[in-house]
């Protein structure tokens, strides 16, 4: 069984202050932050850097609470697939729950999370060019 995996699209670094974590990584390891994004309705704040083909996504709360220190950890990763509907169907056929594909933060993309069967690793699929750009922005 295959899901049509193409490559690891992005890796999530979860933080209590994603802006501070992104700035620290950017300055320490000398790569630029390409994009920041506040997800409407979720209160999430994300910043993105790209290293070769893989995006590093720094994700955290939209409103940063007072903290003693910035804390971050590796979250999960997202695999680009050719056809997200087929990937989701394949995982479900193997007996594991998978969320329905829905518009992603990335314009025109759909994403779906795998909810178990990953050995404790948060895992999702993304398909680019799955939606008209206008729909993705809605």
């Amino acid at each position, binding site marked *: *069984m*295959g*899901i049509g*995996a*193409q*490559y*690891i699209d992005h*890796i999530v*670094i979860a*933080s209590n202050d994603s802006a*501070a*974590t992104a700035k*620290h*990584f950017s300055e*320490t*390891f*000398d*790569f630029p932050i390409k994009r920041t994004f506040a997800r409407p309705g979720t209160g999430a704040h994300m910043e993105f850097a790209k*290293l*070769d*083909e*893989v995006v*590093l996504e720094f994700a955290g709360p939209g409103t940063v609470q007072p903290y003693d*220190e*910035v*804390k*971050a*950890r*590796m*979250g*999960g*990763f997202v*695999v*680009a697939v050719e056809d997200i509907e087929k990937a989701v169907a*394949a*995982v479900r056929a*193997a007996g*594991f729950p998978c969320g329905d594909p829905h518009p992603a933060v990335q314009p025109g993309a759909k994403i779906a999370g*795998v909810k178990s*069967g*990953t*050995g*404790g*690793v*948060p895992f999702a699929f993304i398909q680019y060019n799955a939606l008209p750009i206008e729909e993705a922005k809605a």
Partner: protein
Amino acid sequence: MKISKIDHIGIVVKDMATGLATYQKHFGFTVDPDKGGDIPAMGFKNAFMPVGETNLEFLQPISEEGPIAQQARDRGEGTYHLSLAVDDVNAAVEHLRSLGIRVGDATGGIAYVSRGASSGVVLQLIQRP
């Protein structure tokens, strides 16, 4: 310091055969037969699955000592580290130390950045031959 790409993602598993079978069966990934094996000095064994230009490294403790065994005990299975490919690991270590960042000495082309310098994320620097 030039990071050329993300080399791999480390994933701790308690049982290698089960972990690999999970990713083979559920996602169709295949093991790279040319990489991995037992690393007794580090207390773990590993195996790799390529996904595009990046790899998943599966790590199973083979002793009670070492960071992988500790991770498995304290946090169970899951993502462990992010490995960043650099052209020259010794130069990268020197550069980071010049910034006041704590980094271990490079051994076998690999160095680890102190968690205190990465907000808690386990970061590995790797120089491929």
